[in-house]
């Protein structure tokens, strides 16, 4: 069972339908009680770091999610959901992430690039992981974001180049994140969602 954490800004339904299409049991989680016993949690994207951080705090999700992570529950963060797994973001100074990954998100250098980074771009795998099984070494995926996590060779599983190289897939222990939207990235995206379900 995949537990998809809902928030007012997210496109949780899109992830829900993707898993439904894959034939994987899933539910959208709107309160803490529904997280009991969760073994796989997805934090969907779409939103702003500050608003999501505030929602998680106000809904008392932060500590239970951190405790589940400590107990070994597997997490998949998507886009903003990946960034919120980290510590902070340039998008909302002072707002705190879940601090499951020691990373922060930086704004793309705007003077050189079109920002947001919107559309399909290349993802280059640089480390092996069960999440990536069956994928080509390079594949395209759909991105929509203005902030990114810098490359950290201990954590980065895949890189995308957009003026700078940034982390498009990250992993540490039971925590993984993707900067793109697998629920919107056609076959490659579905493969990642399916791999997370099988992980």
């Amino acid at each position, binding site marked *: 069972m995949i537990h998809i954490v809902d928030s007012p800004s997210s*496109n949780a339904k899109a992830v829900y339908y993707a898993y439904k299409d894959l034939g994987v049991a899933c539910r959208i989680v709107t309160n803490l009680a529904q997280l009991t016993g969760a073994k796989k949690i997805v934090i969907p994207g779409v939103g702003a770091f500050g608003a999501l951080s505030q929602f998680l705090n106000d809904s008392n999700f932060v500590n239970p999610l951190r405790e589940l992570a400590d107990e070994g529950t597997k997490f998949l963060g998507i886009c903003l959901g990946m960034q919120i797994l980290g510590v902070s973001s340039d998008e909302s100074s002072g707002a705190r992430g879940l601090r499951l990954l020691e990373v922060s998100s930086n704004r793309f250098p705007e003077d050189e690039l079109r920002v947001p980074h919107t559309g*399909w771009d290349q993802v280059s795998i640089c480390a092996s992981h069960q999440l990536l099984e069956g994928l080509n070494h390079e594949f395209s995926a759909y991105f929509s974001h203005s902030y990114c996590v810098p490359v950290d060779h201990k954590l980065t599983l895949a890189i995308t180049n957009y003026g700078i190289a940034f982390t498009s897939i990250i992993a540490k222990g039971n925590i993984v994140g993707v900067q793109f939207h697998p629920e919107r990235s056609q076959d490659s995206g579905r493969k990642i969602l399916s791999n997370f379900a099988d992980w």
Partner: protein
Amino acid sequence: MLYRRLIPKIVVERAISKTSPEFHSILTRAYEPHRIVGDPLSQIRIQQSNLVDEIVLVNRCRSEFDSAFSELVLQACEILNTPITVGGAITKSSHAEMLFRSGADKVIIGRNRHDLKLLESIATNHGVQALVISVDYSEYDLAIGLEAFLERELSMGYMSFAGEICLNNISRDGGGVGADLGIVDIIHGETRIPIVVGCGISTVNQIAECFRVGCDGVTLSTFLSQTDQSIKQIRSHLSALGVHIRTRN
């Protein structure tokens, strides 16, 4: 390097039905209904099977936001594995939230782009990347001169909240004379926000020209219902013309 995007735009209108709210997709000319062309959900299925880069779904409602449209978006999201951008008389942030909760990835604000409180609210809650500003203008608007028109647009202040700008010269809609690219160059000089252009495209060479002048994406509506080429074939054609376009997933 980002691939250039081909984006089918499906315009819908509420059908008059005594039993349930239904929408049909229409072709427009100068943004006025021209012809009913079928069921939006089956069109979405067809476009998805062609691995389109994104789909735009717009409810052509002149007066006010129609909450039944969010139900259509929900039905579309049930079958989609590709990004979807939606719009149609969004005047309150609650309208946008309703569409995001149905599964939309981005929302379009057109006529209300002057409403900075609305834009700020959407950008703060859903992120700038989720907000597309549609600049729909006609030759009548351009009569004051291109620079004066742009000055008027930029003075509205919406650029600070826009994740993407979609430029549509309504006078060219459905006419097949090519998109209005004169405006694109000047906008590029003013902003680093991604630009999508639509209205008037009827050949692959016209699409290639849009990308040559720096557009990030092109929306296609009438063209797709009249051409004998699928999106896959158009993509191959564009690739052969040197456009950096996705030819596989």
